[in-house]
C-alpha cells in the first residue's frame, strides 16, 4: 500500500490543549491537563513518566481508541473530533495500530487467528495474503512454533509478542506501543526493539512508544516525559541505542 505523504508543514499528529478526564458516577478524575504536542511523520518517539502520569491515556487518544474530553487532536491536519465512526474505523484498520499494555488478545483463539484479526477488517489487503502476512509477523517476534497455540496457553512475554505481531501485520504508518517490552527479558526485549527500529529506519514508519526503562527509551530519537498529566520535558536524542548492533554483540 503506497504511503500517503502530506506536505511537510502539516504534522502527522498535533494536539492542542488536549485534556482527558474519566467520569464514573458523577466523579471526575482529571488525568491529562492540556497537552500540546506535535509529532511528525517518520519520527521515533519514546514517552516516559511515572506510573499513573497518564501515558496510556494519552496513547489511547492518539491511537484513535478514545476521545479527548476537551482540546483538539489533528491527524494529518484533520480534526479527529468531527470524523465519522467509519472514518475512524478506516484509520484504525489501515493507518495506525496499537500494542496494548494489557495485550488484549482474544482468549481461546489461536495465535495465528489473533494476529490475522486486523486483516479481516483491512479494506485492501487480499484474503489470499492473510496467512502469509500473519506468519511473517509471528516470525518477526520469534513465535512461529506457537502459531497454533491458544493465547491463554502462552507465557506473559509470549502474549506480549503476539500483541506486537498483531500490530505489525497490517504494516501501518504509525505504531503505538504501550510498554511493549514490559514483560520481556532483555534478549527478547531487544529483539522487539530491533523490529520496531527496523520498521522506522527502513520502513519509514512512525513509532510512538511508552516505556519506563531509560534503556528502552534510548532507542528513540526523541523522548517526551509526562508528569501528572503534563508534558514535563521533550528532548531530542542525537545518538540512539542500536538494537541490531546490541543483538549482534550479545550473540
Amino acid at each position, binding site marked *: 500500500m503506497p504511503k500517503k505523504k502530506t506536505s511537510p508543514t502539516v504534522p502527522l499528529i498535533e494536539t492542542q490543549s488536549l485534556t482527558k478526564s474519566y467520569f464514573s458516577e458523577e466523579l471526575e478524575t482529571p488525568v491529562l491537563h492540556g497537552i500540546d504536542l506535535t509529532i511528525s511523520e517518520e519520527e521515533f518517539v519514546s514517552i516516559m513518566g511515572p506510573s499513573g502520569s497518564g501515558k496510556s491515556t494519552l496513547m489511547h487518544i492518539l491511537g484513535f481508541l478514545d476521545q479527548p474530553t476537551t482540546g483538539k487532536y489533528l491527524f494529518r491536519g484533520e480534526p479527529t473530533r468531527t470524523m465519522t465512526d467509519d472514518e475512524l*474505523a478506516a484509520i484504525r*484498520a489501515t493507518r495506525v495500530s496499537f500494542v496494548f499494555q494489557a495485550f488484549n488478545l482474544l482468549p*481461546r483463539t489461536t495465535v495465528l487467528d489473533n494476529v490475522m484479526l486486523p486483516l*479481516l477488517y*483491512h479494506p485492501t489487503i487480499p*484474503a489470499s495474503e492473510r496467512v502469509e502476512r500473519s506468519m511473517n509477523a509471528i516470525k518477526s517476534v520469534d513465535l512461529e512454533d506457537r502459531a497454533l497455540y491458544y493465547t491463554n496457553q502462552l507465557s506473559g512475554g509470549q502474549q506480549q509478542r503476539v500483541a506486537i505481531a498483531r500490530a505489525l501485520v497490517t504494516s501501518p504508518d504509525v505504531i503505538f506501543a504501550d510498554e511493549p517490552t514490559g514483560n520481556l527479558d532483555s534478549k527478547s526485549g531487544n529483539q522487539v526493539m530491533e523490529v520496531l527500529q527496523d520498521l522506522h529506519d527502513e520502513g519509514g514508519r512512525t513509532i510512538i512508544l511508552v516505556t519506563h526503562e531509560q534503556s528502552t527509551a534510548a532507542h528513540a530519537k526523541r523522548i517526551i516525559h509526562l508528569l501528572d498529566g503534563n508534558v514535563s520535558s521533550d528532548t531530542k536524542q542525537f545518538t540512539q541505542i542500536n538494537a541490531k548492533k546490541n543483538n549482534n554483540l550479545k550473540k
Partner: protein
Amino acid sequence: MHINDTVQASYKAVTAHRMRSVLTMLGIIIGVGSVVLLVSVGRSFERYVLDQVESFSSHLIEIYPTGFEKFGRSLDSLSFSDYEAVTQLSTVESVAPVIFVTEKVVYGTEEISPMVFGTTNKFFANYSLNLEQGRLLNESDIKGARSVAVLGYQAAIDLFGDRDPLGERIRVGKRFYTVVGTMETIGSALLQDLDTPVYVPFTTAKAQTGQKYLSYMTMKASIDDDNLVVADITSLLRQRHGIENIDNDYDKDDFRARSASQATEIVGSVGLGLTIFIGLIGGISLIVGGIGIMNIMLVSVTERTREIGLRKALGATRQDILRQFLIEAVALTMIGGVIGIVGGASLGALIAAVASKFVGTVPFVLSIPALLAAALMALATGLIFGIFPARKAASLSPMEAIRWEG
C-alpha cells in the same frame, strides 16, 4: 469486511466460547422445546377427549323425562307406549328402554350401590359396550323376564374381585339374579360411567319395581343428521303428550330428546376452556423460555463488550460488528430452535405413545401455532438481547468498550 469473513468471524467466536454458545443454545432449546411440548401435549389430550366422546356417541340419541321432580317420586312422563311409538319412527333404530332399579346389590359379604339398568341388549350396542365373558341379555331373557344379570367391568371387580362371577347368584334388593356375563371396560368415564352398573332384563326390572314409566330411552339415529331425528322425536312426543310448543321452549316440554353430538358440543366448549388453558401454559412457557434466553445472553454482555472494543480497535466498523452478532444470534437461534422443536415434538409424541398404553389411543397433535410462536419468540429474544447490547457496545469508543465492567 467481506460477508464470508463475517461468517467466519462469527463461527470462530461461537466455537471459541463453546460453553457460552452451548448455554445460549440450551436456553433456546428449552424455551422453544417446552412451548412445543406443553402445547402439543395439551392439544393431544384435548383431541383424545373429543375422540373418546365422538367414538362412543356417534348417532346416539337419548330421551329422558324433564320437569319438576315430584316429591319422593321419579319423573313419570315417558310411558311404555311412548317407547312403542318411538320404535315405529323410521329415523331411529336400536331403541332401548331403561328402568332404573334403585336397590343395593349384594354378593356374599360384598355390598355395593351401583346403578341397576333394566334394559335390552340393544343398550350395549348403542354405547359400544363389549362383552368380556359369558353372554349379553338376549331376547328370551326379555320375553321370559328372567332373573339374569350382566355386570359392568367395575361392578364385577367390586363384587367378585379375582373370582369368576359367571353362574354366581347376586341379590338385587329382594330378588336373586344369576350372573351370565361381564363387560369390558369402556375406558372412558366422560358422559356416564358405564363400567359400574349392573344390567338386568328390562322386563324383570319392570316386574321387580312395578314401575309404569321409563327412566329413559336410548337409540341410534338411522339417518346422518342427528338434529333432524331429534326434531322428529320431539314433535312426535309433544303430539302424544298434548304439548303446544311452536316456539320450541324446552321448559314447556315434559321430556327432552338429545343427541350425543350435542353433548360433544358441550365437551367441545369444555375443550375451549382447555384451549385457553393450554394457551396460557404456552404463553407462560414462552415467557419463561424467553427469559432463559435473555439471561444467558445478558450474562455474556461484559465479555462480548470487551471483544467488540478490541475488534473496533483493530479496525472493525460498527456494521462489521452488528453483522457478526446478527449472524451469530440467528445461527444459534435457528440451530437451537430446530433442536428445541424436534426435541419438544419427539418428547410430546413419546408421552402420547406411553399414555396410549394406559388409556387407549392418544393421538399426537403437533401444535403448529405453538411451534411458530416459539420459533418467533426465540428469534425475537435472540435478536433483541444479542443485537441490542452489541449495538450499544459498538457505539462506545474502543477503549470504553475494552474497559467495560458491566
